[in-house]
């Protein structure tokens, strides 16, 4: 097996095992229901008309011919949706603006990208709906467009919003532009820092916009009743957030909307926002029928969030002994058609793994005529890491130091400063570097045209709001519910933590995801927060249940509850003074529930802080074909601090998946636009994500440095793994060919051009 765990002493019965997931059998038999798999009696199908233009003013929309088509039940435009107040709401890193959101769901004054939703039709069949949208007449005034981020920042660029004044600049500019925001973090004295350096490297880089590439297109089914009550089946990363956004965009009271968590066919951040849900609900309201929408793959590429492409300049200074003394980074990220690229994350994560006394990072959030960006696995961090980790590799070569040792020498640990203020409060980074230094393959020589590259990555990881509930059934089995969408096995990890805490077998815990009417609020499954934060809610609920079980046992024994302890799934007398009692199993207590107080049930809600960040360090060996420029991955080793692996196989799976998405980002994936600003590769044939034959086995190393803030030491595992691959591969290509690639993707034509350049 190409996996191994750097394990700490194992003292658990359930935590750290890899049982079959509770939702496994339905998923291997085709019975699991994803967003597109629901239907209802009387259901209509909806289709969405999308802009053929990258940038156009909408003068008028005539829907009369579409409405007249037999079988058409309703046509929807933005006129059917209430306008929203212009306001940035929430923490800056993840702020939302409903004025923008409603315009992204359905264009109002302007179409801002090819594929922008213009109108929607609900009809008795999908074929009639498709026929009807072709009958909608839109009078467009086509406007000049801009795609590239550097061009969009140019003073003469076509402007998407005529009143957009850059935020974060004092004094505020007087002229509108596509730069929605400037931000800066600064520590120390840059000039003095660079003056003390023995070697300085400054270089510019570009990364392409890449799509999350989930295999399931966005889909939902809505049923709105004449009483104002609505049910929605949606495949999302957070049904509570779908509920909040949909209700807000339609002017509904939140309690009137129940969102059911359909199984989700991949999200990676891209399903934390809404596209089709408000349209389906609004059409159901208008028609009185259930309405189903399923995006096509082309719609997914053209109209849902990829992550930003970026343009950046990174400058780092180092002393001969490998001490980093100064770093400066300027990061310009495409937000897409509306503000909100992950540039703040990019700026914060860029130098976060390193102790550097003098640091500045500057970020620009820039709109252009592309689909609005959405979160994608550690949003922002992989973009800046591509530049930073490439420059570090050059510096390592300049001072003649092993690139892992350069990183180890400057690695942050608990107590180290960050460029953005608070100190690091956890270890874990150095341990991932050491895991690679200890790897038997790391120092093995390579052949002709081959090279080895290393890189590291940082991600904050998330905490936040989660709820869990537990019911003890009369036979002693346990029903566990949370409101966190399960995108990759979290029902299993929740059940493992519950089984461990209660002292019962994993198989006796039925782990489910409840709808929005059946449990308290849970924030999205994103930011690698669920195993940590929802896990904390689960453990807290278990502890509350244990209090109840002790109380029930004390009633059965007629002793004070203080005399009852809970150990390994049994209530036991605390000591001999309590009396001689046989331990009571959970099953024995459950059987007496009616005479000891009734149903045994509890709910626990948390707003978790104390999460620990994720660090990943990776090396890869590549071979570059000098004839074609094709890069073959020969070996890929990824070490990540996972805190403690609750379900090791799914931790490994997160690392495998993140690395391979990174390989696609590095070598193949990009949005290609024609001169009209239309996407040329809106399908999986031309937007090529890695396939099985492209890859070797990815080796995941689970480094376990437990998080003291979690009873089982959990750290988020989902994201840090996608941060290093792009730079690791660029560094490997450089060591194979002597050529430094600074633009993603490093596709064969670019690699060949670099090889052939004199």
């Amino acid at each position, binding site marked *: 097996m190409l996996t191994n765990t750097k394990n700490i002493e194992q003292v658990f019965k359930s935590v750290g095992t890899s049982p079959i997931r509770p939702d496994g059998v339905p998923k291997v*038999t085709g019975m699991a229901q994803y967003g597109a798999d629901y239907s209802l009696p009387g259901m209509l199908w909806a289709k969405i008309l999308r802009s053929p233009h990258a940038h156009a003013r909408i003068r008028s929309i005539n829907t009369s011919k579409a409405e007249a088509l037999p079988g058409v039940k309703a046509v929807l435009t933005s006129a059917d949706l209430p306008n929203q107040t212009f306001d940035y709401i929430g923490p800056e890193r993840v702020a939302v603006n409903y004025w923008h959101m409603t315009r992204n769901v359905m264009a109002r004054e302007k179409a801002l990208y090819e594929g922008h939703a213009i109108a929607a039709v609900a009809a008795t069949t999908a074929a009639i709906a498709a026929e009807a949208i072709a009958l909608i007449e839109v009078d467009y005034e086509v406007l000049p467009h801009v795609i590239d981020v550097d061009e969009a920042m140019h003073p003469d660029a076509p402007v998407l919003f005529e009143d957009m004044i850059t935020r974060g600049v004092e004094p505020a500019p007087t002229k509108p532009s596509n730069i929605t925001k400037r931000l800066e973090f600064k520590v120390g004295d840059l000039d003095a820092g660079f003056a003390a350096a023995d070697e300085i490297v400054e270089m510019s880089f570009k990364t392409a916009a890449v799509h999350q590439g989930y295999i399931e297109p966005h889909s939902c089914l809505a049923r709105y009743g004449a009483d104002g009550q609505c049910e929605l089946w949606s495949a999302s990363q957070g049904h509570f957030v779908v509920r909040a956004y949909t209700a807000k965009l339609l002017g509904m009271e939140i309690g009137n909307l129940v969102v059911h968590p359909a199984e989700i066919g991949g999200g990676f951040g891209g399903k934390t926002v809404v596209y089709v849900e408000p349209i389906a609900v609004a059409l159901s309201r208008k028609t009185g029928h259930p309405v189903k929408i399923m995006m096509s793959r082309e719609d997914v590429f053209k109209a849902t969030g990829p992550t930003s492409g970026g343009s950046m300049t990174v400058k780092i200074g180092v002393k001969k002994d490998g001490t980093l003394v100064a770093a400066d980074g300027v990061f310009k990220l495409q937000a897409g058609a509306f503000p909100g690229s992950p540039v703040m994350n990019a700026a914060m994560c860029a130098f976060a793994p390193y102790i550097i006394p003098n640091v500045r990072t500057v970020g620009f959030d820039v709109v252009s005529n592309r689909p609005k960006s959405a979160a994608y696995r550690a949003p922002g961090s992989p973009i800046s890491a591509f530049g930073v980790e490439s420059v570090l590799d050059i510096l390592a070569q300049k001072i003649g130091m092993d690139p892992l040792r350069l990183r180890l020498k400057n690695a942050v640990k608990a107590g180290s400063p960050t460029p953005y203020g608070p100190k690091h409060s956890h270890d874990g980074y150095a341990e991932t570097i050491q895991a690679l230094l200890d790897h038997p393959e790391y120092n093995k020589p390579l052949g002709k045209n081959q090279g080895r590259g290393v890189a590291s990555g940082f991600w904050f990881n998330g905490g936040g709001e989660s709820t869990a509930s537990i019911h003890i059934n009369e036979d002693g089995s346990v029903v566990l519910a949370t409101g966190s969408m399960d995108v990759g096995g979290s029902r299993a990890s929740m059940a493992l933590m519950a089984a461990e805490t209660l002292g019962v077998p994993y198989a006796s815990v039925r782990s489910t995801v409840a709808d929005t009417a059946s449990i308290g609020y849970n924030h999205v499954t994103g930011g690698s927060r669920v195993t940590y934060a929802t896990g904390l809610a689960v453990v807290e609920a278990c502890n509350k249940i244990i209090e109840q079980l002790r109380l029930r046992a004390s009633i059965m024994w007629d002793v004070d509850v203080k005399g009852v302890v809970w150990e390994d799934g049994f209530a036991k007398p605390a000591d001999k003074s309590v009396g001689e009692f046989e331990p009571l199993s959970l099953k024995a207590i459950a059987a007496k529930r009616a005479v000891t107080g009734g149903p045994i049930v509890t709910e626990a809600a948390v707003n978790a802080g104390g999460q620990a960040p994720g660090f990943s360090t990776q090396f890869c060996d590549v071979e570059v074909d000098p004839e074609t420029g094709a890069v073959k991955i020969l070996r890929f080793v990824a070490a990540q601090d996972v805190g403690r692996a609750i379900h090791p196989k799914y931790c490994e799976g997160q690392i495998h998946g993140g690395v391979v998405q990174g390989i696609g980002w590095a070598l193949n994936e990009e949005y290609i636009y024609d001169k009209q600003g239309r996407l040329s590769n809106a399908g999986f044939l031309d937007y090529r994500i890695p*396939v099985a034959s492209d890859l070797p086995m990815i080796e995941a190393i689970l480094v376990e440095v437990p998080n003291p803030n979690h009873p089982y030491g959990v750290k988020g595992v989902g994201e840090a793994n996608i941060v290093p691959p792009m730079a690791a591969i660029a560094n490997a290509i450089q060591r194979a060919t002597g050529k430094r690639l600074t633009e993603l993707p490093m596709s064969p034509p670019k690699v060949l051009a670099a090889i052939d350049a004199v």
Partner: protein
Amino acid sequence: MSKHHVTTVINGDPVEFLCATNQSLLDVLRNDLNMTGTKEGCGTGDCGACSVTLDGRLVCSCLVLGVEAQGKTIQTIEGMANGEHLHVLQQKFLEHAALQCGICTPGFLVAARSLLERNPDPTEEEVRFWLAGNLCRCTGYNKIIEAVLDAAREMRGA
């Protein structure tokens, strides 16, 4: 336009359906026959989520017209388990944690079964190339490949 009357055998059972001329087999399976285990990921034959076999041949059902199924035998994911007994491949996918979101899983299982019918002892490379038409975005393919190789071993009695 009137619909076509099509007679097929699906997972061993006789099935008749009516379909429009331009309707794909995938559309018929999912939306007329309520067999939603076959998934749509792209509709253009690029992702393999809709894999079924047609007279034993592995196809993307989104690239087959419903009318082409006339007189043919179709196998879908719904016919893979034998009652409550999972197929070895299904069991190995579970044991190896070879699925995360699971949307690609039915297609991979149908494609992998098709491979093992032709080649009961594939190499890792042969598995990787046979499954290259099935996209998975979650797993990086590691555990899928391991599960298929393990299932092949078990099915051979090795």
